């Protein structure tokens, strides 16, 4: 059963930690489309964080197309888009380029970059367990 963990001691804001983990779980198929997530109140209570923190994480993922927020049904994992439109695709690729540039600047070699990308893709395809690095 999927779970998430946060660390308030990290520099990364808690809402981003929550969003990142949910994004990875959805991409890896651990949370399939149509899966209902706990309500903002329940998840915030379980984690002991402010309601706005979880609401912000859910809204971010909704904007990114990972979640659908419905009034009655709650928060549900969205179905993957059939095809990505031109400008959206260009924007995501630009984000990927920026991330790769930051990693290169941080000292990763080309080989390390490729290994990391292959590993993430393998995780998404379900051929490897998610690691918690």
């Amino acid at each position, binding site marked *: 059963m999927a779970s998430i*963990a946060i*660390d*308030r001691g990290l520099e990364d804001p808690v809402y981003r930690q929550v969003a990142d983990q949910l994004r990875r779980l959805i991409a890896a198929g651990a949370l399939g489309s149509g899966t209902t997530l706990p309500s903002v109140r329940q998840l915030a*209570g*379980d984690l002991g964080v*402010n309601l706005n923190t979880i609401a912000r994480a859910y809204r971010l993922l909704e904007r990114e197309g990972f979640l659908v927020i419905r009034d009655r049904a709650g928060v549900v994992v969205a179905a993957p888009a059939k095809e990505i439109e031109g400008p959206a695709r260009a924007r995501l690729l630009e984000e990927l380029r920026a991330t790769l540039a930051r990693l290169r600047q941080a000292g990763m070699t080309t080989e390390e970059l490729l290994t990391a990308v292959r590993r993430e893709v393998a995780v998404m395809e379900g051929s490897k367990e998610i690691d918690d690095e």
Partner: protein
Amino acid sequence: MSEAVFVNLALTVRVLIVGGFLFFLPRVTRVGLLFGAYVGESSAEGDAARRLLRSWYRGCVILTVLSLMVGYGISLAGRPLAGNYTGTAVLLLGALGLYLRTYSRARALAPPEAAQQATKAAASLYVGEPRGAGLAKFALGFSIIAAVATFAYATVSYQAMTDRSFVAIMFVPGLNLVLSPTVALLALFTVNAKRSIRAGSGGGSVEAQDAFRATMVNLMSWTALLFCTFMTVLSVQIVRLGLSENASLGAWVLWTAALFLLFLIFIVGNMVRILKGYGQGGARLEQAAADAALTDGIADNTRWVWGLFYVDRDDPSIMVEKRFGFGYTLNYGNRTAVLFVVAFLVLSISVAAFVLIGATR
């Protein structure tokens, strides 16, 4: 049966139930917790913990015997009621002292890192069903309507009474007005109580807590419903007797005692059933997952005062699982929970003042 025998019997039953409950409580708490302190999963089953447990068992037996001896002694001196109250007070105050002493010794077993506020927390994405919300809402609505209506009925009816004590007429409706909606509202709060999981337990821990929480919501809702019904019927009967001259409670005393006894059996029976089948917080259901460490609120000693009061202003949970005891407790750092406590105190004082001031007129 003479009054003294009846009072002593009541004391014996009460002391044995409370003493027995305290005796067995450490056996049904979640692994890792020891007398209100989080000491870690391995320490909780070590030699030092076993010594503490033995000391607790001895203390419970001594307290039970002592409170019975004090109660019987005062009763034999010709004051059975005073003996009943004193025996009960000895047990309760003694239990508090024993608990605080054992708690402080348990805290010393906690790992050094437990002295600092935990920054890590984990939560399951298992939605479960916040079960029991419908019953809790019904219990709340029913108890508010029934208790308010009965209180108003008793107040208005008293105007037509002659030679009756206002306190005697209003005591039961007043108690009903304060207690029944309070228990029902607590049941409603418990529907969304915090779930403290064991991270990496594969979900066994959160499922156990969901099951325990649903059972507790049902028990509290039914308690509110039955208590309110009992008190409402009793209030109406008291008013009717108050309105009729030369009337006495007569057979109603027996009926009331029998119904109240059934109510107590319902409460105690269900507590035993839940603690035996589920354990506190689902402890018994999650035994297979107990190797994984507890996380967040329940495992953070800095958020608990004496292991009894949970205080965390950042935590939006109104109710959290008790570390030592049965069921759930309030998060005293939560604004709604504090408002609830204040409202309860204001209501209690207002009803008491209304009855006492009315009695002097």
